[in-house]
């Protein structure tokens, strides 16, 4: 089975042969439904069994991947800590459950990625950690079903951008020479490819959607809204875009539209902070090159205004994971083996 997993900092995306799974990234120790952790969003209490929470049992501990406001969010661009490995294994387990994969599944090839400029030094710590955890035994529980991560696992670590490039090539959006702009939550990766896959230039700017979340929280507080932790903002934003919470009472009878404040914060951050740095790296590529854009940032930043020629991948948040799945399949067929 060939699986692509994009370990994002706002959401983990996993793509298998038949199914796509998107899950939370906040991490709690134990099980929130019956452990020492109190429910933080009481209105969700009745729906606990229906949440996307994933429970991961390693040899030494039980963890839960969740989007609750009190969870810990790892916002480091270095994806080498245990939280990243747990997110990968949680997503793998949930996808295997969603795929109805059998225990006797043949060897599983998983392709994932690390921030492009940090990939070389960070691949070894993450890869070794994942393999150690799998050897010791990992069990994943999601939506009332349990799966044991198969011990025959092969993990391929690519650069963030590789998945988008591969997906774009299959879609006919990228050629042998293209530049990928991956607008992630914590890092913005810029990778220039030549000769159909050689990484010519690689950059990872430590800026992205998480900065917009912070700016949004600050803007809300300045207008009289509540002062929120990062976790609370992370919890709020998906519900805001889903249309569940769209307005907030500022306390004196006035209400304001949250989406408008968020859009302003995203635009402000992109135009002032992110775009000047990206533009300096792109050079003449900005106007004339074949630029492919993906990542969640492509949905919230006004990229069309500054890069009119660039091609935005369909469903940009999932493009990376889809491409990783394609790379895993190609690797298994022997296409990239030396």
């Amino acid at each position, binding site marked *: 089975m060939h699986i692509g997993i994009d370990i994002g900092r706002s959401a983990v995306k996993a793509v298998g042969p038949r199914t796509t799974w998107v899950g939370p990234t906040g991490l709690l120790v134990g099980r929130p439904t019956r452990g020492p952790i109190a429910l933080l969003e009481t209105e969700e209490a009745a729906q606990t069994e229906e949440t996307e929470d994933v429970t991961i049992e390693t040899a030494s501990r039980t963890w839960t991947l969740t989007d609750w406001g009190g969870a810990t969010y790892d916002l480091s661009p270095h994806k080498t800590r245990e939280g990243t490995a747990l997110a990968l294994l949680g997503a793998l387990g949930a996808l295997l459950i969603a795929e109805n994969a059998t225990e006797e599944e043949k*060897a599983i*090839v998983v*392709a994932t990625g*690390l921030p492009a400029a940090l*990939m*070389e030094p960070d*691949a*070894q710590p*993450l*890869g*070794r950690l*994942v*393999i150690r955890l*799998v*050897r010791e035994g990992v069990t994943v529980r999601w939506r009332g079903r349990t799966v044991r991560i198969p*011990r*025959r*696992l*092969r*993990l*391929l*670590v*690519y*650069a963030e951008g*590789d998945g988008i*490039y*591969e997906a774009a*090539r*299959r879609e*006919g959006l*990228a*050629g*042998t*020479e*293209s530049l990928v702009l991956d607008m992630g939550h914590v890092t913005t990766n810029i990778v220039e*490819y030549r*000769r*159909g*896959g*050689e*990484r010519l230039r690689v950059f990872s700017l430590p800026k992205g959607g998480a900065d917009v979340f912070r700016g949004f929280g600050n803007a809300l507080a300045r207008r009289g809204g509540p002062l929120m932790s990062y976790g609370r903002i992370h919890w709020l934003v998906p519900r805001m875009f889903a249309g569940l919470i769209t307005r907030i009472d500022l306390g004196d009878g006035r209400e304001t539209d949250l989406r408008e404040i968020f859009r302003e914060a995203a635009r402000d951050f992109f135009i002032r902070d992110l775009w000047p740095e990206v533009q300096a790296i792109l*050079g*003449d590529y*900005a*106007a*004339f*090159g*074949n630029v492919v854009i993906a990542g969640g940032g492509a949905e919230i930043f006004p990229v069309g*205004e500054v890069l*009119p*020629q660039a091609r935005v991948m369909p469903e940009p948040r999932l493009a990376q994971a889809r491409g990783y799945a394609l*790379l895993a399949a*190609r*690797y298994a067929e*022997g*296409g*990239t083996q030396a």
Partner: protein
Amino acid sequence: MKKTGPTRVSYRIPEWAAEAIRPLIRRGPDRDRLLAHLAVAAGDALERPRTLLAEFEALYGRYARRGRPTHMRIRLPRSLAARLAEAEASGIRPWIILVVAASRMAAARTEAAPKEGTPDLPGVRPGGEFATEDEP
């Protein structure tokens, strides 16, 4: 036949276009390619001006109105500079032809997807490979 030498011309051009074109006009192989595309685009501007303008609008319509204009000096073959001046007289600004030429050059650089697994085009390679067993 008498060989025409280069001449230095100055065009008023939006800053974004000037920034993007300057590196192309300086480098050796890129400059040669750009001049080849510029010759074709100048011909199009004289023979099919509406098509060329439509191509420009489709690519940079919204973008073109942004940013301040600046002056850019370029060394061009005399015959090519004359054709651009001729196009300007007929109503198409040289910088629009320059931008279309540079864009066509970039598009030509981006070819169709290559065949998989060929030695020259090996595809994207992983930076790390890990297995729970020696041979899965």
